[in-house]
């Protein structure tokens, strides 16, 4: 029996009501989470405002007198971001090829690669930073290792997803021409997804610059080290100056990144 217009309208209306209910439920969940974390406690905001105002007051004007001492750490941070990205890419690509179901050689390897990526993702880079500082000492090196290893978890997952969504038709054509599995990857999969992989990599580099500033806090070199030192001395004028320097570098790095991405389209 073919459906009637009224039947379809009823079904469509029911779907609309279900959708509305789902959105309302989601909104209620978000409100509950905000309430649970104390967001609706107006008193705490009221109490916090004067302290915030005082901090802001101490931050102005920023104190740039020590700027010469920050040049080297900023360069270190930049170097850390590039080195961390390079290591992350080299490690991510092979793992991603194992973790993408359309090119993975065996389901067991697929599972193992995915588990490894989840594990690396789940260890925050700050924790990795603490571990590597303990292992190889203070400086930029532990920072680079922490950035790279944590990023393999993220970058590898994004790479694998890009590879997984590659158009299967050229892959079929390459197979039909007698290409080996490795040739399928190099000549049918990678040419399709290279722009996406480059995209992910450049985003990750931008992120690494910001993240390496944080890693300095646990002793892993770079401008973050200077930042935590100024915070410990309660010298908020210097803190704001360093933050402004980091902001300026982030703006430059992001602009460079988006210019690169446009070139690679």
């Amino acid at each position, binding site marked *: 029996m*073919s*459906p009637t*217009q009224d039947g*379809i309208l009823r*079904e469509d209306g029911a779907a609309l009501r279900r959708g509305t209910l789902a959105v309302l439920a989601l909104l209620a969940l978000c409100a509950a989470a905000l309430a649970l974390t104390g967001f609706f406690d107006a008193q705490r905001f009221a109490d916090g405002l004067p302290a915030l105002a005082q901090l802001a007051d101490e931050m102005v004007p920023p104190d740039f007198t020590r700027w010469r001492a920050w040049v080297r750490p900023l360069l270190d941070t930049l170097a850390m971001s590039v080195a961390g990205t390079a290591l992350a890419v080299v490690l991510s690509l092979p793992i991603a090829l194992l973790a993408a179901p359309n090119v993975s050689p065996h389901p067991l390897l697929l599972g193992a690669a995915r588990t490894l990526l989840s594990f690396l993702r789940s260890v925050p880079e700050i924790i990795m930073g603490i571990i590597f500082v303990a292992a190889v000492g203070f400086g930029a090196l532990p920072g680079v290792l922490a950035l790279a290893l944590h990023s393999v978890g993220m970058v590898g997952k994004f790479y694998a997803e890009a590879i997984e969504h590659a158009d299967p038709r050229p892959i079929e054509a390459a197979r039909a021409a007698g290409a080996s599995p490795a040739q399928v990857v190099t000549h049918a999969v990678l040419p399709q997804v290279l722009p996406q992989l480059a995209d992910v990599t450049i985003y990750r580099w931008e992120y690494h610059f910001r993240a390496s500033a944080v890693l300095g806090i646990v002793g892993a070199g770079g401008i973050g080290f200077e930042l935590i030192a100024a915070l410990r001395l309660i010298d908020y004028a210097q803190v704001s100056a360093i933050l402004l320097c980091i902001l300026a570098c982030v703006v430059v790095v992001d602009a460079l990144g988006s210019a690169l991405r446009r070139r690679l389209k």
Partner: protein
Amino acid sequence: MMIRTEALGVTYPNGTMALAPTSLDIAEGRFTVLLGPSGAGKSTLLRCLNGLVRPSEGRILVAGEPLAGSAAWRAHRRATGMVFQQHQLIGRVSVLGNVLTGRLGYHSSLRTLWPFARAEKRRALEALERVGLLDKALARADQLSGGQQQRVGIARALVQQPRLMLADEPVASLDPATAERVMRLLHEICTSDGLTAVVSLHQVDLARKFGERIIGLARGQVVFDGTAAMLDAAAISRIYGTPVTIPEKEFA
């Protein structure tokens, strides 16, 4: 509705002339076919008629009035349905939802945040019933075959309650039998509703079968303008450049 183009021409920024200055009168209520090979300027001319392509020279008059200002263009587009070669549906949205996008011209941007009215849904279902797809109304558009998707495209244009119907190679990506069925449906709807129709095609047999008036285009120029009966071998070779052999029965 009657449409006139006056020395309408399109030259792309790279210097390519897609359409040489063309003056045409398209009569109300007739089924006009633009015939020509790919790259002849059919799509460019068609898309000028609803402003998807901005002409670099000349102008368009609708019912004797030149189109001026965004409000006039919006009103003209609302009254103009368009069927695309690649259907241009949203695959993960239901058939009904896709058809309802044909109603957007009737709503303000603010009104759009609220669901479509029941009367409009009913109008969309009536359009789907006309193209024979009522039973697919709640299916996802990407679950339909190519011919069915194009019928959804026709329903989306119909729900606009258009007076002008444009179709840009509506059957080019369909197999011959399906192509003929979809063309027949489009022709039957336009004729029975008295719509002015401008349809671009590259198949001579379909143009002959459905075109009341055939405008042949080659390299951005009008090289033929007449009825199906006037479309002889010489005219076809003017349009396609080389002589084209035509099966006997098509002359019968």
